C-alpha cells in the first residue's frame, strides 16, 4: 500500500506549481489554470486524508463540494474575462489598471 506522504508530496508539487502559475502569468485564462491546479491539489489532500485517517467519508464529501465550487468559479471567472476582453481588448492582467489611471 502506498504511503500517505507520497500523495501529500504530489499534492504539494501541484499546489506550488499552481502558485507559480498564478504569480507569473499575465494572461487571465492562464491564471485560472493555476487556480484549478491549486484546487485539485487541495482535493487530493482531502481524499488522501479521508482514506488514511479515521474521518471516514467526510473528506470525500468536502472534495465533492470543492468540485462544485470550482465549476461555479470557473464559469463566473470566464464571464469576467470575456467582459474584460470586450472592454479593454486584452486579457493581460497588467493592462487591467483602469482604476489606477
Amino acid at each position: 500500500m502506498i504511503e500517505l506522504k507520497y500523495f501529500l508530496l504530489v499534492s504539494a508539487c501541484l499546489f506550488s506549481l499552481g502558485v507559480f502559475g498564478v504569480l507569473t502569468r499575465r494572461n487571465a485564462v492562464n491564471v485560472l489554470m493555476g487556480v484549478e491546479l491549486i484546487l485539485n491539489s487541495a482535493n487530493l489532500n482531502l481524499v488522501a486524508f479521508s482514506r488514511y485517517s479515521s474521518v471516514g467519508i467526510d473528506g470525500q464529501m468536502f472534495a465533492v463540494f470543492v468540485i462544485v465550487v470550482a465549476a461555479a468559479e470557473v464559469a463566473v471567472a470566464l464571464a469576467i474575462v470575456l467582459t474584460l476582453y470586450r472592454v479593454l481588448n486584452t486579457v493581460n492582467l497588467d493592462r487591467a489598471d483602469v482604476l489606477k489611471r
Partner: protein
Amino acid sequence: MSVTDIVFILTAVVTVGSAVVVVVSRSLIYSVFSLLFTFFGVAILYVFLGADFLAGAQVLIYVGGILVLLLFGVMLTHRLYNLNLTTERFQPIAGTLIAAAVFASISLAAFKTKWKLVGEKELEPTTQQIGEAFLSSYLLPFEIASVLLLVALIGAAMLVRRRTDV
C-alpha cells in the same frame, strides 16, 4: 517494488510533469491540453485512494466541463486569425522563489508531522455512502451548493450578454 508502486510513480510523474507544462509553456493551447493530462492523473490518483465516485466526477466535471470552458476562454479572447496564442511571464524570479518556499514548507510539514493514521481500510464502493451523506448530514450544504450553481449560471449569463439588447 510492486506493480502498484510502479503505476503510482508513473501517474505521479505524468501528473506533475504536465502541471509543469501548464505553468511554463508559452503557448496557451499547450497549457490547456496538458491540463487535460493533469486532471486525468489526479483522477487516477483518486482511484488509488479508493474514491471511485470522485474519480468519475473528476473526469466528468473537470475534463468534460471546466477544460472545455477554459478552451472556450482561450478561443474567445484571441482573434482567430492571430494563431500564435502566446502568453508572457512576469516576475519570474519572485514567483519561483515564492513557489519554492511554499513547496518546501508544505512537503516539510507532510514528511515531519506524525499523522494519526489508521491501518489499512477495506476498499469498498463509496457512491452509496456519499449519496446517503448528501441526503442526511450534508443536506443543507447540498441545497446551498445547488443554489450557488444557479446563481453562478445566472451571473455568468448576465455578465457576458450584450449591453445593447437590454
